[in-house]
């Protein structure tokens, strides 16, 4: 690598001025794919250079800059200043509305957990697509619970801590029942007076699920 091994050449060529040595090291460290050791620097610089001293100057020059000269083991490299690390992350935030299928599925899991896919479909009265379940799993709002001890041992779904966090709930049991939903005016389709009894029954079913909650 070095072309100045020869003692005759050594005396013939004087080492470049320190400012120039600094420039050279700056370029080498910049272009190198790995941190560069002092020995490697010495071998790549013209004969008579003092890379250790040039490094000191260079380090000082980059103090407080957007990039710093850092030591990595016994090698040297440029690195982004630690306080600017956030600039290296590009965050794009997208807000999407959860689809109706997803929110309904999520609601059923929350109120009926642990619940199987077949049960979700029965309650919704429509098939639940794999994609909907996957989306909720990926968002970490639902997760797999214990397998149901029935033939076929179907998997069950339960809501997660993240779900509770997101919706500001202590536990899924805190979800209001139907009666409360109605009292809060969340049920626009008020049932006929005659069927009120029925509603309570259903609510029973809901609260009845609570024994099955996994906590």
């Amino acid at each position, binding site marked *: 690598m070095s072309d100045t091994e020869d003692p005759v050449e050594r005396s013939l060529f004087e080492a470049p001025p320190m400012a120039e040595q600094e420039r050279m090291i700056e*370029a080498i460290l*910049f*272009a*190198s*794919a*790995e*941190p560069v050791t002092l020995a490697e620097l010495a071998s790549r610089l013209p004969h008579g250079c003092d890379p250790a001293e040039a490094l000191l100057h260079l380090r000082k020059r980059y103090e407080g800059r957007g990039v710093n000269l850092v030591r990595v083991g016994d090698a040297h*490299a*440029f*690195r*982004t200043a630690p306080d600017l690390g956030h600039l*290296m*992350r*590009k*965050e*794009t*935030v*997208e*807000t*999407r*509305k*959860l689809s*109706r299928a997803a*929110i*309904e599925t*999520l*609601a*059923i899991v*929350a*109120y009926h957990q642990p619940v199987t896919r077949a049960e979700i479909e*029965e*309650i*919704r*009265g429509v098939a639940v697509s794999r994609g909907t379940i996957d989306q909720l799993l990926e*968002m970490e709002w639902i997760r797999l619970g214990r397998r149901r001890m029935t033939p076929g041992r179907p998997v069950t779904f339960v809501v997660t801590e993240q779900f509770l966090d997101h*919706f*500001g*709930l202590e536990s899924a049991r805190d*979800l*209001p029942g*139907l009666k409360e*939903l*109605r009292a809060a005016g*969340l*049920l626009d*389709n008020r*049932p006929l007076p005659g*069927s009120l009894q*029925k*509603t309570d029954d*259903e609510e029973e079913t809901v609260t009845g699920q609570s024994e099955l909650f996994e906590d």
Partner: protein
Amino acid sequence: MSDDDWTGEERLSPAERVTAEALIVDVDGFEGPLDLLLMLSRTQKVDLRRISILQLADQYLGFVEKARALRLELAADYLVMAAWLAFLKSRLLLPPDPTDDGPSAEELAAHLAFQLERLQAMREAAARLMARDQLGRDFFARGLPEDVTRHRKVTYSATLIDLMRAYARIRTKDEFRPFVMDRDHVFTMEQALERMRDLIGFAGDWSELTSFLPDGWDSNPMRRRSSTAAHFAAVLEMAKRGQVELRQGETFAPIQLRRKS
């Protein structure tokens, strides 16, 4: 290649000999007739703007002749150029025909000179371009780029209210289902699906949907309607899954199905 072909060489200048050799040794090395013309034009040792097209035409035709004598195969475009130059040469030598309203021979010659000059200019530009400092050879990019990590954060706008509304919607829908209280006379699609799943294994041939209806569900009209509807929905679902094939001769004709092989 006989020795005779080389006897004339003594009369050529060194530059001409070089081009002659270039042609003879590597006629494929020329990038087309224009390239050959450019090469030949250099032997005139004048600025391309003052080149004698007449002389150039002679040189070109001479070389084509020579290539023929050497039985070198010249591509068609070289021969087209030769024909065009022969035509141009005759036009340049003859007095202009006053009845000809096309471009004059001088205009054609000037255009050829322009083409040569332009090609030459592009060659020089290319050489200057390649002589520039180049990335990865003379100057360098950061060797250790710190990749920008891209986080795509998707937030969903679902709120607790949305969640509760959704649930309420589902549950209240149940409340208004007229058959909920009358399960005795309702055959659900799930039940039908389960039955069909077992039965379809035997249905290799076309058979009517009604033949699959369960016993005891055909006397009461309500039960018959319910089981028919449930089974119809079930086979539609199975057709969707690719398990059965359905057909119907015409509107209101019996629906037939068979297992899909």
